[in-house]
């Protein structure tokens, strides 16, 4: 596999977001949604979380849902951001990364590209490009939250910066298998919309089916570990560090990408 060609492919993906009208419009919409979240959710929730008057109530409420550790963070903005981003970015990445190869395959553009690089390079390059895009968007939202936080309390600059880096890295790890899943679904469906529909069915019906069947055959519950985001509930409280929780998305990503490459190699273009 040529790193140069993979890098070229990944770079070209970045220009889809930052150098096309459609990409810039999507970026504008994304910025507006996050402006609303920052302004009306995070900024409004923080006074409750950091106020000593409400400390007991919020502590009890958060404790009931296993988030006691989070409400004790002095960086309250990042705590609220973490919970929102933890659930929204994986879902968001399913939509944003829903056209990694399928559009180009249907249009025939992949035929031009496949004369210049291997199918593995195309898949890995496109995956990395999409990952860079999501990583940049995560970074920008974390940065906005960080600015909001130090605007409230400048003393949180040091600890907040470190926590921001940690949260960014954690979110990137979490979205990785979602992007890899869309890479695979792109190869077995005939449009990006169908890929999204199939992903939704997988996460709803598929999940429910496995849960139901594993009631009778408990060994089937292991199948849930194939699902991206299976560890999200465990990592949400941030109360302890478990290596497995962070290795799992990496393993899922590698597994899904390997499966994608095998599928792509057999596919006609």
């Amino acid at each position, binding site marked *: 596999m040529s790193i140069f060609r993979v890098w070229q492919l990944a770079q070209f993906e970045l220009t889809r977001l930052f150098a096309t009208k459609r990409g810039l419009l999507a970026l504008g919409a994304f910025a507006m949604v996050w402006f609303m979240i920052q302004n009306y959710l995070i900024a409004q929730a923080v006074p409750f979380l950091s106020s000593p008057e409400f400390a007991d109530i919020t502590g009890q409420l958060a404790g009931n849902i296993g988030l006691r550790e989070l409400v004790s963070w002095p960086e309250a903005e990042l705590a609220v951001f973490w919970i929102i981003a933890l659930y929204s970015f994986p879902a968001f990445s399913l939509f944003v990364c829903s056209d990694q190869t399928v559009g180009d395959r249907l249009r025939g*553009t992949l035929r031009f590209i*496949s004369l210049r690089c291997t199918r593995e390079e195309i898949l890995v390059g496109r995956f990395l490009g999409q990952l860079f895009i999501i990583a940049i968007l995560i970074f920008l939202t974390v940065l906005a939250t960080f600015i909001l936080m130090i605007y409230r309390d400048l003393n949180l600059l040091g600890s907040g910066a470190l926590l921001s880096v940690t949260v960014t890295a954690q979110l990137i790890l979490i979205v990785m298998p979602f992007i890899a899943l869309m890479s695979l679904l792109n190869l077995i469906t005939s449009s990006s919309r169908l890929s999204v529909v199939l992903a939704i069915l997988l996460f709803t019906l598929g999940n429910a089916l496995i849960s139901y069947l594993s009631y009778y055959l408990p060994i089937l519950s292991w199948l849930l570990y194939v699902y991206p985001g299976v560890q999200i509930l465990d990592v949400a409280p941030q109360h302890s560090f478990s290596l497995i929780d962070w290795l799992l998305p990496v393993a899922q990503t590698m597994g899904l990408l390997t499966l994608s490459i095998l599928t792509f190699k057999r596919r006609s273009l």
Partner: protein
Amino acid sequence: MSALIEVNNLCKAFGDKQALNNVSFDVNKGQTVALVGPNGAGKTTLFSILCGYLVPSSGAVNIMGKQLGDPALFGQLSALPQDATLDPRFSLQKQLNFYGRLQGLNKQKANMETSRVLELVGLADNHHAKIAELSHGMKKRVCIAQALIGSPRIVLLDEATAGLDPLNAREIRHVIASLSEDITFILSSHDLAELEKLCDHVLYLNQGQLTTHNRDTKQGTSQYLTLTLIHDSRDTLEQIKQLSGVLHVSQSQNKEYIIEYQSHFEQFDIHLLKYCHKLNWQYRQLVNGHTLENQLFQKDK
């Protein structure tokens, strides 16, 4: 001659339908090869296998001593696939530059190559245009341009001039002819007159089976000319037979005669034209050998 492409016993089936059946052929360096056949004969399937878009059911393909999909072929083998188009979101320049970069060219060289190939296909003023802004013919020319980026040694063109107006089709033929000394072209087309002008070797596919035709005019002790007249009469055939050196004459179609003559007869073509002049016959065309159409469809004559 060294074979650039070696295809041995290639088969491809789609379900019950055998699209290619034991197809074997070689393409040598410097040849310009025509791939002809009726619709559904397997031409695009064969192209797709050579380009690596389809996996063959069985058989072997060797291109420049490499297996299909070998990274060493990137930039060496290029193609105009049928019905493929560029991404509508980016300008021609951006995409062609990107293809150049994928072929290992640096930014400056990729830029120069983009300008060169766009100029070659007559689209020098369309660097910043997007594919959706172009006409069908221009889209086709852009796709041909991408096949010429860098220094490809083999270029496969599937229906390169289909849908082009006569002037642009002529330009494309001119480009192919001018590059055919350095590049081995394989062309598929239904325009036999076009292939006749460009190709020296013909692969004829029919129902997945291949026959090859060498366009060498000499066969044993005899050679052939195909004469097309503007007007003829009932006696024309007999009159041609009376010309010295003629071994056999047949009429392939209206006003078209295939003349077999002794190969040692020097300047027979001039001899024939003088004979036409003497009999006050006006000729439309004189082809050295058989026309491609006759070669493919009237072999028995």
